[in-house]
Structures are given as structure tokens and as C-alpha cells.
């Protein structure tokens, strides 16, 4: 039987390198994807997600097991992303990375059912606008939306990750989705 994340984390606290490697393998893709969704830069996402694993290694002893490992780890990761955004806020006004441009990634991701080309174009533009609108959300709203949509996390768990009340998460999500809905309606 596969050991649980929580059991692995307890082994990492005792400096079990194999347990650490296994946890990294389990979470690397999710961590990198979430960091990329927050930061929109592949290199930053790689650095920040790796930093999150290093923090995990260093702080494994403080994981009490009262919450799920995933919630605890996502909190580390989201905090690092929010810190990174804070530090680079002014720099970003001057320099814009190529990764920031949302170019054609949506085209690559969409399955291509047979549809009217005009409808398809309109739909792709809407999706592109929606993705860009997510990028413009306030950082904590964006984190709440990404955890909800991308990681399919429950409100309770999002609250644990963002270290706030469930009511606050509901407000974050409501405001963010209201903003995004307006973006779609404008088109």
C-alpha cells in the first residue's frame, strides 16, 4: 500500500530522503502548474515551486498532521507566490516577460470539435480574455480562484491555505467571479 502524504511528511521530518523524493514526485506537477498560474512565468514558477519543496524539507517537523498535507504544502507555495509577486510588482511595470504574453496557448489546449469557424474564433477570444482577466485579479482573489478551479479545492481547504475564514474565501470567490463574468458579458 502506498504511504499517505502525511506519513511521508513525517518521515521527511526525520530526514528520510526517499520519502522527500516521493513527495516531490507526487506534487511537482501540481506545484509547478499552480505557481505558473499565479506568476505566469515558467522560470519563476520553477524557482518558486522548488523553493516550496525546500521549505517543505526544512519545516516538515512543524507539520502537525492536524490538516491535510496538501493544504499545508499549498499554503507554503501560495505564500511564496504572493511574496514573489509583491517583490516583483514594480519591476514588472518596466519589464514584461515573454511568458506573460498569453499568445496561443489556448488554441493548443482546446479540443477541436466541428464548429462554425466564426463561433470558434469568438469562443477562443472569449477564453483568451477570460484568462487575461484572471491575471488582472487581486493576488488573493486569483489564488482563491485557482485553488478552486485548478486544484478543485473545497472552500474550507482554500481558507486553510490562505489562512483566512471561509466567509472571506466566499467573498473573494464571489467578487472575482463577478469581475470575470462582466469580462465575458462585455464580449
Amino acid at each position, binding site marked *: 500500500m502506498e504511504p499517505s502524504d502525511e506519513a511521508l511528511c513525517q518521515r521527511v521530518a526525520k530526514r528520510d530522503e526517499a520519502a522527500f523524493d516521493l513527495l516531490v514526485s507526487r506534487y511537482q506537477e501540481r506545484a509547478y*502548474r499552480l505557481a505558473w498560474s499565479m506568476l505566469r512565468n515558467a522560470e519563476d514558477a520553477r524557482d518558486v515551486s522548488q523553493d516550496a519543496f525546500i521549505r517543505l524539507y526544512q519545516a516538515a517537523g512543524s507539520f502537525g498532521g492536524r490538516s491535510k498535507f496538501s493544504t499545508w504544502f499549498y499554503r507554503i507555495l501560495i505564500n511564496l507566490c504572493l511574496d514573489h509577486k509583491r517583490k516583483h510588482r514594480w519591476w514588472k511595470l518596466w519589464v514584461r516577460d515573454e511568458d506573460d504574453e498569453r499568445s496561443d*496557448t*489556448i488554441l493548443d489546449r482546446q479540443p477541436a470539435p466541428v464548429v462554425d469557424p466564426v463561433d470558434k474564433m469568438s469562443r477562443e477570444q*472569449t*477564453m483568451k480574455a477570460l484568462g487575461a482577466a484572471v491575471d488582472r485579479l487581486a493576488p488573493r482573489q486569483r489564488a482563491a480562484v485557482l485553488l*478552486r*478551479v485548478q486544484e478543485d479545492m473545497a*472552500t474550507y481547504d482554500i481558507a486553510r491555505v490562505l489562512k483566512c475564514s471561509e466567509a472571506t474565501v466566499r467573498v473573494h470567490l*464571489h467578487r472575482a*467571479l463577478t469581475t470575470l463574468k462582466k469580462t465575458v458579458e462585455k464580449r
Partner: protein
Amino acid sequence: MARHPDTDLVPFLRGDLPPAERDRVARHLEECPDCRQDAEQLRDLLGDLARSIGQPPTVQWARYRAELREKLEARRGRRAWWSRPVPLAVSASLAGVLLVVAVWGGREMSRGTDPLSPDEAVIGHELGLLQEFQTVERLDLLEDLDVIGDLDGLASGQG
């Protein structure tokens, strides 16, 4: 009609609400066409969002883990400065030097007399006081010129 469950709709759609709240929102949606429409739009929007956020550029995971290992090793090697051997030795040496200086300086101070300046030495020599400087220094007579005039005798032991 009860208040509109705006902020409850997202958790409701995911099934996060506790039973009592879930029933309340469900009842409200049956009665309120606006909220029902909002809920449907939100459901579509959440589905679209999952697709619109997209996927990051691909990563070579073996390389990613190797980089992570290197960073972790580097962090392990970077111990706190005060626990590193070299700064510790330097600090200990510095503390030792300071201790020696303090003790030596204290002993010098305890000898009690300030060295004479050249001018004082010349005057002292001319007055014949230099040989008895230790004695003279302890006398509070130096401002009395008459007494000073008699001090020459001290050198010859007549005083």
C-alpha cells in the same frame, strides 16, 4: 424572500456547504429565477475558467528534481554564520585580544600616574622637583608660590 445567497453560490455548486445551508440555498434557487440564472452562469464560468487558465510550458522533471537537489544541498551547506568554524575562530581570537587589552590597560591604569608632558618635565627639572615628583604630586601646594620656592630643599632632604 430570504436574502440572495450571492457568496454561497460557488460553495453550493461544489457541494461544500453544510446540509442546512445547502437546503436553504436550494430552496432559494427554486423560488428566485435571478439567482438560478446566476448559478447557471457561474457553473459555466467555472468550467470555462478551468480551460482558460491553461497549461504551463513543459518541464523536464528529472532536471527539475536535479536542480532541486542542488538547491537543497546548497542550503544545507549555508549554515548560520555564527555556527561556521572560521567566523567562530575569528570571533574567539578577537574576544581574546580585547580581553588582553582590557587586562593590560587596567594594570597600566592602576599604576596611577599620568606621564609628564615635555613642558612639565623641563619645569620640574628646573625646580629640582623631578626626583621627588611622586611626593610633590601628592601635595596640594603647587598653587602657593611661596611654598614652591621652598621646595628646592626637598631634593636635598632638608624640608
